[in-house]
């Protein structure tokens, strides 16, 4: 009984930590996104509120919380209200297994990475629910495109992840990190890294794969009919997904928390935010793909390449030993 209580308290406390991290990370990332895009386009970006606009997102968030929640007339009420929850839940659960340092992690599970993959797939379901329930043509189009996108990126993502799993022989994040003690996987598996980043960008619905949202054609895509806090939850989940995908890529390819001089947590966060910066850079470099182009690209290039990468990895591993 006492054990259960202690365990519950520990999980509760970690959840508070996770929620604060999710909030702070989203506030920071939105500011960073605006600054990065501004500087890429040679303009200053937000400058008024706080130092170089650092408090701008806090002001925006406060405004968003105060906004009225509008529920359009013909929505499918239950699914409409459930969609933000289904979107937000996997985001929280994924943090259960992400190791920020050898000691700073909630649970070091032997199914860790599999858990993240399993839960991150729920995001598509949430988008489909939101799009269908909204009774809005733009939202429905966004939802259908999201499914098409999932059909495209999911398999290469799983297959490239597998070539790392073979090398580590485990799903446990700490084992995967420890396996890169000498050389980071990015130098051993450069192709897998490129494929994983492409699929990860698609998974987070970031440009050039922001097909379900496509603000210039679909208004806001699947979350067109969501306002106030409900919209904020979608937004929060989206930015946290960027963090999670970058964290998984860091664990897989960049040696996790390992690095000289600085404490492990700092190294981990540095690597994660460097990858996020890369994804923001993509947004202002590549034009958006059509979803048929994405499907063709995934099935004709990504999947064959990841299959080849997997089989070559397996053979090389056997030859080396």
């Amino acid at each position: 009984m006492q054990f259960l209580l202690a365990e519950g308290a520990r999980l509760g406390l970690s959840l508070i930590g996770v929620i604060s991290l999710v909030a702070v990370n989203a506030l920071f990332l939105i500011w960073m996104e605006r600054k990065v895009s501004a500087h890429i386009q040679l303009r200053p970006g937000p400058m008024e509120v706080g130092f170089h606009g650092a408090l701008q997102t806090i002001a925006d968030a406060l405004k968003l919380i105060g906004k009225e929640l509008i529920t359009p007339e013909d929505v499918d009420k239950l699914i409409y209200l459930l969609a933000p929850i289904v979107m937000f839940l996997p985001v929280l659960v994924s943090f259960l297994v992400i190791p920020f340092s050898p000691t700073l992690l909630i649970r070091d599970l032997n199914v860790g990475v599999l858990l993240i993959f399993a839960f991150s797939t729920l995001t598509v379901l949430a988008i489909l629910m939101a799009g269908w329930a909204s009774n809005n043509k733009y939202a429905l189009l966004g939802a259908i495109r999201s499914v098409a996108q999932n059909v495209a990126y999911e398999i290469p993502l799983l297959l490239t992840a597998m070539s790392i799993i073979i090398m580590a022989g485990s799903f446990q994040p700490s084992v995967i990190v420890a396996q890169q003690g000498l050389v980071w996987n990015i130098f051993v598996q450069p192709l897998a890294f490129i494929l994983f980043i492409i699929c990860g960008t698609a998974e987070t619905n970031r440009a050039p794969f922001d097909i379900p949202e496509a603000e210039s054609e679909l208004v806001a895509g699947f979350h067109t009919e969501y306002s106030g806090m409900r919209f904020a939850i979608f937004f929060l989940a989206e930015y946290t997904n960027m963090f999670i995908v970058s964290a998984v890529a860091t664990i897989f390819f960049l040696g996790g928390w390992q690095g000289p001089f600085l404490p492990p947590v700092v190294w981990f966060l540095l690597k994660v935010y460097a990858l996020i910066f890369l994804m923001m850079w993509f947004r202002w470099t590549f034009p958006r793909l059509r979803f048929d182009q994405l499907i063709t690209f995934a099935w004709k290039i990504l999947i064959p390449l990841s299959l080849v990468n997997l089989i070559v990895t397996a053979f090389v591993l056997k030859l080396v030993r």
Partner: protein
Amino acid sequence: MLIDYLPILVYFVIALGVAVGMVALSEAVGKKTHSTVKDLPYECGMVPVGDARSRYSVKFFVIAMFFLVFDIEAIFLYPWAVVFKQLGLFGLIEMAIFIIVLAVGLAYVWGKGALQWE
């Protein structure tokens, strides 16, 4: 053994509570006013024509079916990936055959033109 995964369930339930709480709280707080125009779906200011839940030609349906097949094959590969180092040459060759069958399947589908967008 299974008790190791109990924290996932506990954490999941707490996280569900938090997510529901966030939505419910914002639901409870704040005023709501209704008007005919406000309750319409947002379509850039135009009056919506017809219902949005109309039939939509899902052109990627065939690819979605391949997706199911390949996704399950990927799941089959995962246990192999974990025990790969213990399996020895036998495991490698057997799974190489499996992956090659997968690749031949993809090549067949490709050759049949199923990946082609009409």
